[in-house]
């Protein structure tokens, strides 16, 4: 992984979400790839490990839960942030069991997401420090 810039993958089937998140995170110095179809995102994570993955939980096609499970299987060090429109306690609990870093309910403040990503990024960097 590139030590300079952290990579982020965003998956949400609502184009507005990825379109607005991308520039907000790029401005903070992250390299951002976005997807609105879970199949495409799934294919992408088979090619490349991301430092941080942001995904919606409820989508058409591949379920968000399936997607994040696969992400964690392939790359346990990836921090996953979940966004969702309607979080139930059950899904929240389930996703935390899968090792999700944090949870944001839509609609959320851009600043909240930036801060969450920043915390996730710190954790990723701490992971590197431990390895070194």
């Amino acid at each position, binding site marked *: 992984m590139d030590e300079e810039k952290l990579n982020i993958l965003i998956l*949400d089937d*609502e184009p*507005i*979400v990825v*379109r*607005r*998140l991308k*520039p*907000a995170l*790029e*401005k*903070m*110095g*992250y390299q951002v790839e976005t997807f609105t179809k879970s199949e495409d995102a799934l294919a992408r994570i088979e090619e490349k490990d991301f430092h941080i993955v942001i995904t919606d939980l409820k989508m058409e096609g591949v379920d968000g839960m399936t997607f994040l499970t696969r992400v964690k299987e392939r790359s346990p060090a990836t921090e996953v942030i979940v966004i969702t*429109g309607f979080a139930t306690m059950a899904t929240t609990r389930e996703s935390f069991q899968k090792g999700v870093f944090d949870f944001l309910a*839509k*609609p*959320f*403040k*851009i*600043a909240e*997401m*930036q*801060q969450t990503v920043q915390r996730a990024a710190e954790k990723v960097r701490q992971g590197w420090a431990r390895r070194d």
Partner: protein
Amino acid sequence: MLGSWRDNLKGWLRGGRSSSAARQEKLAELFSQFQRVLRLNNRVLDRIADMGTKLGGGYIFDRHYIETACAELSEMVYRMISALNAMSHNRYPELYDAFRAIDHQIQQELAGRVAIPHAEYVMPYDSLGADFVEVVGGKNANLSEVRNQVGLPTPDGFAVTTSAFQDWLEEGGLEEEIALVLARWQRGELSPEETARLVRERLLATPLPRRLEHALRAAAERLVRRLPPARRRLALRSSAVGEDGELSFAGQFRSLINLPPEEVPRGYREVVASLYSPEALVYRRDKGFSEQEVAMAVACQELIPARVSGVMYTQDPRDLQREAVLINAVWGLGGAVVGGEVLADQYLVARRAPYASLGVDIVRKSRRLVPRPQGGTEMVPVPEELQSASCLNPDQVRRLAQAGIMVEKHFKRPQDIEWAIDDRDRLYILQARPLNLGPRMAGLVKDISKVLESYPVIFRHRGSVAQEGIGAGRVFLVRDEADLERFPDQAVLVARHSSPRLARVMRRAAAVLTDLGSPTGHMATLAREYRVPAIVGTGVATRLLAPGQEVTVDARQNVVYAGLVKELTYYELGEESFAETYEYRLLRRVLRKIAPLNLIDASSPDFTPRACTTFHDITRFVHEKAVQELIHGDFSRLSQAGGARKRLQCGVPLELVLIDLGDGLEPEAVGPVVRPQQVASLPLRAFVEGLGRPGLWSTDSVPVDFKSFMSSLTRTFAFSLAGPRYLGQNLAVISRHYANVTLRLGYHFTMIDAYITAEANDNHAYFRFLGGVTDLRRRSRRASLLERILARNDFRVEVRGDLVVARIKKLAREQMEARMRLLGYLVAYTRQLDVKMTNDQEVARAVEEFQRLQEAAERGLDPAI
């Protein structure tokens, strides 16, 4: 919050003190409906405010949010109507009709059909904005936005909507015919010219639907009647959907200049026909536009008799590194410069205030375009002495640049603007559309995050973004009205409080920063309307920023940088603006059916269910009528029959009707009139003690200035200034531990709901105040006064515009009683204050005065407290 009265009612019913248990049960049922109305009312207003803040750009939301929020809101409003009708023997069935009409429009919007009220064919500019772009086209939408939100003069006018276009096509049976012709063209069987001719002939041979013809004539007549007789000439311009947006379609469609009003229907058909000009057909094909997407709206405007006109690019596209506005100007009408038929004077101006001249190029202008007396336009020679003279003087150049930058700031894109200046030196914006430099602008900045690291941050993540965007300029500290007078163009406005009085200069500000304030306040709403980047509640702005210091406000990332971060301002101009997204427009459109409050004066004959055109209106109407039902309806009759209804006499000019649900009065209070010492209800007793303290009822006559007096008169408002009595609209429903007090002070109700027992954990008090007479600024001064006093007394206070909601709970009985007395003082003290508070110093002074009076009153009551 409002639940604990139930226990009282149950207890009261079990006790069976009154003669008829059935009657009591009915009373309890009615009061419970009333409580339901109150609860729903609060939740509806919360939700509306919440949806409004989402327009500021600080949040990410999707369609699903808009749908869910609307569905919830719609359900709450429906339940409010049901509760009112349950209280009133179904007295307001028309409310369901009003509800259905509004709800239907919202559903239409959500289904992707822009709901214009009654499928209108024409819409006046004053009622339009950018969110109507799908029905009025880009030109109309942008221009009305410039007129109504940026606040710059534009020609008066109206839009002919795409509904008009569609109905014409449909009723004339044209849709299929045109589709057939276009199909032949697409198969290569017809040339663009032949295609255009066939479609045009067909269109011009088809009469307009009678209703449309009538609407066009009537709207044109109304428009010219607003104009001086010598200026009753009109211009018709295309405003196709998609035009003046990402794709400019520049010069593809027909404009008709200098028409008398009666020519508008004919001219309309000409302009629409130009939708199928050979150039337009080819352009659409090349740009991948589907012919099904094509819809034409038309702009009908007053013709500005231009002495000078021209085009302005707010960023010189020839050299992006040089920050300059480029202005072209010619004598007469502007058609010539747009069409490139004549040479134009050229002016280069700095993009930042004070808009210094960077260069002037005066050419010889031998001809100019003028209106012909018999209609249309003609080229005529320019008088010799003007031919080599500059079309614009330095002041006009500066004003143009200033206006251009204001428009650019609003749309967050460099602009291509057509403008005119008339004989009386008035500047008009005729058209504004994005100048497409997007990719080139963004390309100027290589790696924005790296660039940003090199600039010193003054503060970051303080307060809330009320309106996103980037603004750079010099810090200007606003402390009082006099400072506002001196506010320099494109400065960064820094103030301690967020206040709607800042609205006066806000549109000229590069950005707004305040120490205090919330994103749901009035000022935040205005910042969103004007799209001025704003961060409120930073806590530190006035302390950390020095007057005159140059700063860049990033109200996207919520960061304030020292110095001018040029890259960020460029970067932003290349980025997609939130306001250009479909979700933004959709939310703004549904909010039009939800948030505006048109029903203000409850004593007006227009205060009817029929007049309700938004959910806010319905909410307001239901709340008002629910209180009236309680006071005059069954509830009142039943309580009277049961002897539970009394009148309180407490020595102040305020008549309070008491309805005792049980043990709220001392046993000896048997007559119709009750004295304060006979009140046993703990919360009410304390409140009345506060209300009756001498010294807090201001007895001096309030000087009402002429303006507020007039505004009172025009809204047929009679009693807030009158003083001595409040029309019997004040009501307290009480039990031993509970009181719900509704006071009619001014236009709106002040509501207090409190429950006090020996058990601190169960105790609560809730205070709600909304609005008043006089203008917005004064109203929110009163709101700000209440906020400060209540917060000082440990209430948790939320202010949304002029709605103040304060809550306190779980204090011991004595402390709760002290808070109820405070509310009594406050009601006594503030009832006329908004007409008195003519400036912000008055607020601070009043807070101090109130505190003195409060302390004195409390000492008089019990020196130990």
